[in-house]
């Protein structure tokens, strides 16, 4: 859709929703931000107020057969989860409008713009964020404990309970569907099955809680973004995911997202949850996170082969080798110290 057309649809749809919330009478400055391999992210202004639009450029139905839940929730369900999280102390943007795939805008939601730095390469390295970096692992532990305390009874029906066995089965189904081209991922999946932790009660997981989805200001955590992979699972999964090698931006010596240490994350979590996550469990879920990343890469390749997406999707397919390497490396460290 041309930005001018999208802009007009947004003005029409948002006018009644924003009438008594934000001053202004129309959308201006609509601009697509780069990044985001699944959903589009656009910046816009309503009067003087900056807002963010998340929009899925294809219908949910058109991809359902390809990747199941790997590309995540509908944006309607994602918005519902963000609204649940907004009732806690987790920093999330206010949601102003939600549109399903039948709306002229397409499947989308409009939310508040939270000031802060979203580009990890900046906040991970710039001196002005040093204080923020020092606090961030503890704050991430706090935020995850708060997310995990959200009542799963209030979730959209698409975010149902599952079991580890079903997760393994889904991963195996995908490896087969993608042609069994990766012996390393298969080796890793076998290992994960053989070393599975005991089932613990499931909680609401963010599902994609990583460095690239955090908004950071000088005081630390300013926003938790991108809730499209939210699902139910054991708490350690979110913690391990944040610590996965692939999300450390090269700073492997700082296992928590390239900025912090395990003890800080665990202490932050314990300060809210009242119990201390086990480090070995976190390490197990780091290996699982590598498998998940490998499957996402394969999904991107399959989408590109089906004619959806540009050269970035084709390129991401080859990043599967990061996941393969990490699975083998982490398993080697687990087995041999």
């Amino acid at each position, binding site marked *: 859709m041309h930005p001018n057309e999208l802009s007009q649809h947004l003005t029409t749809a948002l006018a009644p929703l924003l009438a008594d919330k934000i001053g202004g009478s129309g959308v201006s400055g609509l601009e*697509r931000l*780069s990044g985001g391999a699944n959903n589009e992210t656009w910046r816009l202004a309503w009067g003087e107020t900056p807002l963010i639009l998340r929009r899925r450029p294809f219908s949910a139905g058109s991809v359902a057969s390809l990747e199941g839940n790997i590309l995540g929730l509908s944006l309607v369900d994602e918005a519902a989860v963000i609204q649940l999280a907004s009732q806690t102390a987790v920093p999330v943007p206010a949601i102003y409008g939600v549109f399903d795939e039948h709306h002229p805008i397409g499947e989308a939601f409009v939310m508040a713009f939270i000031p802060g730095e979203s580009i990890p390469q900046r906040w991970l390295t710039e001196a002005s964020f040093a204080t923020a970096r020092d606090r961030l692992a503890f704050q991430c532990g706090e935020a995850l404990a708060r997310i995990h305390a959200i009542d799963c009874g209030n979730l959209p029906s698409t975010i149902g309970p599952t079991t580890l066995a079903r997760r393994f089965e889904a991963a*195996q189904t995908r*490896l*087969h569907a993608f*042609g*069994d*081209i*990766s*012996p*390393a*991922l*298969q*080796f890793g999946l*076998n*290992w994960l099955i053989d070393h599975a932790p005991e089932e613990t009660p499931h909680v609401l997981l963010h599902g994609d809680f990583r460095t690239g989805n955090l908004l950071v200001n000088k005081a630390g955590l300013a926003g938790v973004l991108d809730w499209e992979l939210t699902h139910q699972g054991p708490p350690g999964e979110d913690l391990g995911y944040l610590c996965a*090698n692939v999300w*450390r931006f*090269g*700073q*492997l010596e700082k296992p928590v997202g390239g900025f912090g240490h395990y003890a800080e994350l665990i202490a932050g979590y314990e300060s809210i949850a009242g119990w201390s996550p086990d480090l070995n469990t976190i390490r197990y879920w780091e290996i699982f996170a590598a498998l998940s990343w490998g499957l996402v890469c394969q999904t991107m390749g399959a989408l590109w082969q089906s004619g959806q997406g*540009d*050269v*970035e999707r*084709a*390129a991401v397919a*080859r*990043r*599967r*080798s*990061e996941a*393969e*390497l*990490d699975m*083998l*490396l982490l*398993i*080697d460290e687990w087995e041999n110290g």
Partner: protein
Amino acid sequence: MTPEEASASAEISADLLLSAVKAFLVESAAHHLEGRDRFNARVAANVLGIVQREQALGPALQALDQEAAIRWLPPAKADESIAQQLSRALASRELAPDSAVFDYLKARQLLVTAINNPKYASRAVAEARWQRA
């Protein structure tokens, strides 16, 4: 080098052609593009780098897979790659994930990652760990 000397040099290899296109994408085209297209021009240049490295390292990878096939697989099926046959043998648990299989996968992965993403941080860690062993 004079034009006469230059014309006497060898054929421009596929590798050099890819380097020329990469340079065009990054040093010229990207500067005339904006937003998503500019980003994708850089992605495209990186993709050509993958092709170059696959041309250079592909034969070593094939040789490694061939050794694995001789060791662990029945006579090859024409419609399946060695990687596919090994994956399926692991999935069905016909191939046990013993230390020899693990060592092969580690050696293979160093090559695969050297092709696809040689700058990936944990590759250096894995290389130091596995080449020492």
